[in-house]
């Protein structure tokens, strides 16, 4: 008897749930709210910019709420895919600039009119090209990060290095001096360069005029095994063998390289603007190092020039599923206004417009990165590029070189053929 009672009760409960869900209609179509997906870097890094954008947007549209939902980098694309599949993706979404092409090619975003957005004539070229596909604009540059060499002024001085190097050859020679002075400590690195830190390593390739891949007659060809690219990779191999004690199989984030730097056994490392204050963080870093830390753009092998750096960054786009396109566009305008972008720049990033580079340039802590941002490279703009990144082709190649498991040439050959194959899938 009791059994049937329990069973009936549970069944009723489930039916109740089903009924409730059936009657619960969606509130789509009512323009009283827009949903924005930003990565959680904004939440912890530049919340003032978000607050500013929301205030200005609300002033423009008093009846509309803005729901900013913060995402994590690891699984945000799966969540976005699910949203697209279910037809309820957000109205505005932030995507990494190397993630954009894949989604643009699939028709995931609405086309945008460039002239509608603030500072559009001075958008950073590197970011702008990541928002364009087949001649149309599908996104708005949000912010970028440039890398420079962050170094220990006191260690340079003690090793007899009088001024920051102006050429790659000088940089190598200087680093050798550092190793001579401090290298007896088995933990010391003149330049901390982990094996999977491809943003830094591939910059050497571009400095010598090489590229990851080129487009010839409608098809892509991996070009890491060309003589120019190999010249760059050989320099990286030299660093790996003689100038660094960093792990050959991890990347620059685990452990966070600026924090390793703060422990005192690193002469220099290649980092973003925010990594300088991070090394001095009072909770995690070493604030006592403040007077002896400086930065300079990585010099090119051509004396007097700067090595091109990878322009990492994010863009903002409007998914094609939105019902509030004009509201979404207005919010993006508010978030990429000069005022908001200034807040973002203050946090150690490069704003999306060259007009604000001067802002960074006036701050000695940000100036080297602003200078470095002027010379940049970007990944091949193929919809299949994301697959190359996900297949870890570049990391595999570098790890093989760093661990000595393959010669530079052999590793580059394998990588190039993999890149050729992956970029041309479905072509």
């Amino acid at each position, binding site marked *: 008897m009791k059994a049937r009672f329990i069973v009936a009760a549970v069944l009723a409960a489930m039916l109740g749930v089903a009924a409730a869900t059936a009657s*619960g209609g969606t509130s789509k179509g009512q323009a009283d709210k827009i949903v924005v997906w930003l990565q959680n870097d904004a939440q912890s890094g530049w919340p003032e910019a978000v607050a500013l954008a929301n205030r200005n947007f609300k002033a423009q549209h008093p009846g509309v709420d803005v729901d900013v939902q913060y995402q994590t*980098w690891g*699984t945000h694309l799966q969540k976005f895919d699910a949203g697209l599949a279910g037809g309820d993706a957000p109205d505005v979404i932030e995507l990494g600039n190397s993630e954009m092409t894949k989604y643009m090619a699939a028709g995931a975003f609405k086309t945008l009119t460039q002239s509608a957005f603030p500072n559009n004539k001075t958008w950073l070229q590197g970011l702008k090209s990541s928002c364009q596909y087949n001649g149309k604009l599908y996104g708005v540059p949000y912010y970028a990060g440039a890398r420079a060499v962050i170094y220990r002024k006191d260690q340079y001085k003690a090793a007899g290095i009088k001024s920051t190097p102006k050429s790659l050859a000088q940089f190598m020679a200087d680093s050798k001096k550092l190793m001579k002075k401090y290298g007896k400590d088995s933990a010391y690195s003149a330049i901390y360069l982990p094996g999977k830190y491809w943003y830094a390593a591939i910059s050497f390739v571009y400095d010598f005029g090489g590229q990851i891949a080129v487009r010839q007659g409608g098809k892509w060809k991996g070009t890491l095994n060309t003589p120019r690219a190999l010249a760059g990779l050989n320099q990286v191999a030299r660093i790996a063998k003689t100038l660094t004690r960093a792990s050959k199989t991890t990347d620059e984030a685990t452990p966070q390289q600026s924090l390793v730097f703060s422990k005192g056994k690193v002469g220099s490392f290649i980092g973003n603007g925010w990594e300088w204050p991070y090394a001095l963080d009072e909770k995690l870093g070493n604030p006592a190092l403040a007077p002896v830390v400086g930065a300079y753009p990585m010099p090119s092998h051509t004396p007097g020039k700067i090595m091109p750096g990878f322009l990492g960054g994010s863009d903002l786009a409007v998914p094609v599923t939105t019902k509030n396109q004009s509201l979404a566009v207005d919010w993006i305008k508010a978030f990429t206004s000069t005022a908001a972008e200034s807040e973002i720049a203050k946090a150690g990033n490069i704003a999306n417009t060259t007009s604000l580079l001067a802002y960074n340039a006036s701050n000695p802590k940000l100036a080297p990165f602003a200078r470095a941002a002027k010379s940049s490279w970007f990944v091949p703009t193929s919809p299949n590029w994301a697959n190359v990144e996900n297949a870890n082709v570049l990391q595999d190649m570098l790890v093989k070189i760093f661990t000595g498991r393959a010669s530079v040439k052999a590793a580059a050959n394998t990588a190039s053929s993999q890149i050729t194959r992956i970029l041309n899938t479905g072509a």
Partner: protein
Amino acid sequence: MTSGTQIAPTPVAPIIPRKLGRRRRVHKLGWNLLGLLVLAVMVFPVYWMVATAFKPGQQILSYTPHWIPRPPTLSNFRDAINQPFFWDAVRNSLIVVTTVVALSVVLAFLASLALAKFHFYGRKAFIVLILGVQMVPLAALIIPLYIMMSRLGQVDKLTGVIAMYLTFVLPFTVWTMRGFLLGIPKELEEAAMVDGATRFGAFVRVLLPLVGPGLVATSIFAFIQAWNEFLIAYVFLHTPEKQTLMVWLASFTTLRGTNWGPLMAGATLCALPVVFFFLLVQRRIAFGLTAGAVRG
């Protein structure tokens, strides 16, 4: 055997005479030492997590490990609790978990009764189905699940998440409860049924206490599964007010790396309810507390 007596589970103890002889005491010491070693090895990573939660940031990444935080600091815990939406996440996780545990234990007990004590058409098929469902990788199901849940209007709703958790927890709980039920010797069952009670009444009064330990073990499992699940909660819960603790924990990792101190503090906080729940229910798994069974 007297009728109408509740047969309580009796604790299993090593068969040793009342007074420990010297040889037995040495044996016992040996076992205890081994037990301590096992405890130390198993618990060390958890100790490391809790110790890290109390360490100031500089001591966390250190060339020489700091075994004991000196001085211990509460700043990581403060940072963790101040991370936005902590209390919302606590509330949501508690709601989801208590519902899932309660429903799954009840449903699993009923279903496993059917599978273990009855012979009926479709039994084998159902067993195979229960096992098969657990073989489907969750990541593969996310998109189809989302499509369906979206049509039912269950995206960004705790009820949707509860329903999905129930679905993933049930096959396991049914499966395990069946094992516990099968592990009860037939004699005990038969002995209890002699007084002619109705079948189901007998089940509840007799079998329920006998599988007490099994129910507890499965409820712990259901609790932990629901408490620690991330992927479904992250994909299906959008507004931060609705998110669970696991999604909240993920917010400690940004492009700038992971904030270890507060993350470990947050993780420690998240582990506490599980431990409390366990301490609450662990008595049913016979820890040597005699239940005073009266047997004829």
